[in-house]
């Protein structure tokens, strides 16, 4: 698996860094949700100023080490790299990975010169959920001079990257570097505390940022779904990461879903010892919402994708999962709410796929208790309730880490503006 990972080290840094044209009004930087200053950090790498490169990429994106491993850069900065018109894009992600791997970051500035807002001094902000969105918001607000408390219901910082992204894709050290840098700021962390009613926080905080992600799994509502060998994807990924020795997937694993999380689950199943991994996706290849890099990794591992296929029943015999009864779809011309062609079941094409275990990864929802804040959300990261903001996956559904970072940063600005003028 390691062979799939390309790398930039001291031997080939200059060759790649010198490929950057240092464009005016750099398209890469504009395409980066976190606005990582691409030409500037690459120029710093070229001059041997690795520490500064590390500093400015991390100032833009507090999750930069994590993004150095998992950001689908081909779909952001590298997609618009001017060099696409010459030969191939600059390996921007690998270069910022170099910056964070080799640079010596000396901690976030507690109060950055540019971001400091004296009116924020003494203001108290609560952040609910310590994933990429929450932590980025915390860093921005803290850097601007506010007093920040982060509430996290689990015992860990990092959210999805910590709990669910397989270690094969994201080594612990990289997330650890990000969390360590964030910890250099004086941010109060309240771990193992679940906030059931965010409005109560307004008694002691001036504003609240909800970034509690998508902890609830969507159900298929088909027979056999609750069998012990039919895993919910979050539980599956967490156990695969935290205690891989205690999970037995058998030889054949059937994963249901068509997003990046389902690909993560399929890859994880291989690493847990499966010989065959099948992915059932109800629509066609064009409708699949996955990052190219993840799809490539999955197919290189051998994941077999069955398009236009959906599970009708998880077939249990002698209290063990034996097979999955599958139905076939065809795509209609009708476009659904997601903007994709709607699948229609076909009669008479059902088949069974043998399986020792299955993983259902068909989508995630926010915690039901947070629903009242999300509906009819107004612009500018504001929830329906005054002084409560929200961002990250809870607001926009499953997204990338770098997108969550953008939302965290922008929400911090919105909170900053609100605390200044009190306008809602």
């Amino acid at each position: 698996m390691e062979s799939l990972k390309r790398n930039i080290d001291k031997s080939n840094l200059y060759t790649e860094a010198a490929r950057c044209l240092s464009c005016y009004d750099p398209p890469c930087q504009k395409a980066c949700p976190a606005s990582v200053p691409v030409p500037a950090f690459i120029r710093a790498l070229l001059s041997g100023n690795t520490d500064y490169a590390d500093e400015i990429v991390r100032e833009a994106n507090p999750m930069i080490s994590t993004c150095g491993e998992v950001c689908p850069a081909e779909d952001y900065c590298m997609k618009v790299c001017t060099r696409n018109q010459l030969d191939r894009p600059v390996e921007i992600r690998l270069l910022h990975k170099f910056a964070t791997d080799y640079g010596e970051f000396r901690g976030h500035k507690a109060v950055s010169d540019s971001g400091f807002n004296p009116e924020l001094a003494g203001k108290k902000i609560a952040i609910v959920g310590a994933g990429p969105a929450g932590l980025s918001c915390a860093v921005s607000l803290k850097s601007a001079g506010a007093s920040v408390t982060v509430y996290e219901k689990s015992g860990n910082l990092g959210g999805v990257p910590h709990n669910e992204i397989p270690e094969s894709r994201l080594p612990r050290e990289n997330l650890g570097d990000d969390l360590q840098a964030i910890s250099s700021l004086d941010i109060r962390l309240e771990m193992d505390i679940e906030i059931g009613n965010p409005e109560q926080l307004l008694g002691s905080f001036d504003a609240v940022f909800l970034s509690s992600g998508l902890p609830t799994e969507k159900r298929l509502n088909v027979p056999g779904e609750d069998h012990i060998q039919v895993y919910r994807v979050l539980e599956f990924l967490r156990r695969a990461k935290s205690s891989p020795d205690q999970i037995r997937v058998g030889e054949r694993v059937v994963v249901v879903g068509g997003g990046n999380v389902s690909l993560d689950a399929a890859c994880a199943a291989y690493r847990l010892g499966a010989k065959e991994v099948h992915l059932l996706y109800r629509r066609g290849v064009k409708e699949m919402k996955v990052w190219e890099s993840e799809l490539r990794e999955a197919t290189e591992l051998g994941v077999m994708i069955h398009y236009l296929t959906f599970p009708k029943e998880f077939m249990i015999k002698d209290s063990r999962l034996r097979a999955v009864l599958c139905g076939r779809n065809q795509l209609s011309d009708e476009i659904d709410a997601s903007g994709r062609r709607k699948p229609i079941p076909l009669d008479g094409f059902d088949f069974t796929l043998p399986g020792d275990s299955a993983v259902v990864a068909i989508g995630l929802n926010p915690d039901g208790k947070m629903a009242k804040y999300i509906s009819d959300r107004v612009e500018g990261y504001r929830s329906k309730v005054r002084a409560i903001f929200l961002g990250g996956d809870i607001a926009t559904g499953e997204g990338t880490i770098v997108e969550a970072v953008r939302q965290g940063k922008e929400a911090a600005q919105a909170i900053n503006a609100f605390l200044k003028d009190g306008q809602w």
Partner: protein
Amino acid sequence: MVIYTSELLKSKFLGIELENPFILSAAPSTDELSIARRGLESGWAGVILKTTSRERMGVRLTYPMMSAFYNDGRFAGMGNIDLISVYHVNEICRRIEILKSEFPNKMIAASMMSDSREGWQSTAKALVDAGVDLIECSFSCPQGSAGEEPGKMLAQNANATRQAASWVKEAAGSTPVLIKITPMVTDVVAIARAVKESGADGVTASNSIPALMGVDIETLTPIPAVNGFSTYSGLTGQAIKPVTLRTVAEIAGGLPGFPISGNGGIMNWKGSVELLAVGASNVQICTAVMLNGFGIIEDLCHGLQNYLVRKNIANVSRLVGAALGKITDHSNLPLRNPKSIINLDTCINCGKCYISCRDGGHEAIGWIADSRLPKVDREKCVGCGLCALVCPIPDCIKIAEV
């Protein structure tokens, strides 16, 4: 039509037949018999054995002697604190005899250096007696040279050059003598003229350039560091090519017809065309071989040969000095006012021309943000040419009168 390509590269230099214009210069690649032999075997037209001297001249080498400087990680120039050969003249004479018998059709030359009339003359005589084809005299080694004043190169003083060169020529008799000079003078033509007046046959232009290769910013010790100390190096490689071209052009322009063996910074066949075109009769190479090996001779010969065929030039000697007539004083240049013409069809929207013109030119290129295209303001554009230099696309930007 059959092209006898090898004929294209043949020339005669001071009566010596050269199968091609590429000669291994007096340097490490010619300092061991076995290495020089392999160089000749691989196709080089001749060797100039590394500078020798009389036994009484001590050669105190210290290491490391090689260094380099880089631009964005790319090799830009090489430096050495090498000295003349540790092999004295008797050993060199032995090698000349061996190489002459093994390679009767190649030029076997030797470089020498001394510090007195007797030294110059006895060394030259010994080399002639050994059958050397040509003697080159180093009047310009940056690290150690017997100038008329301590620390000064012989070739930095016209009178000293004339004197010493005439001693050598007197001793060498009919054997051709080249004086290897330095570009580090106020008037290089005056030095070359002194060589001509001495009776010597020509110059080798020019030697490495005294330089400080860099400073290790961790230790604040200049490089190369020898036990915590350093000294000035001789700079070679691509960095010095423009200096060599200027030196050769000035001499060829100032002393028409005076033979010049070109040396300094030529890394490939294109560079050799340039050096020949400004007046060198042949091309000595060292650094390119030290970096890439003797095998580059193939590309050098084939590149030059293909060029001559393509340009319909009958022989390499026709190239010598071909560009000289186009060098004039700045004050003689016509006044022109060309403009930058950008081909927007091949533009890749990087904006480098915009940045350079804005901050290093005349604020004559605008930027259309939506389309990411540059736009030349012909009123402001003076046609300086900076934009064309920074454009990553060949021929996208032309500087021409409109």
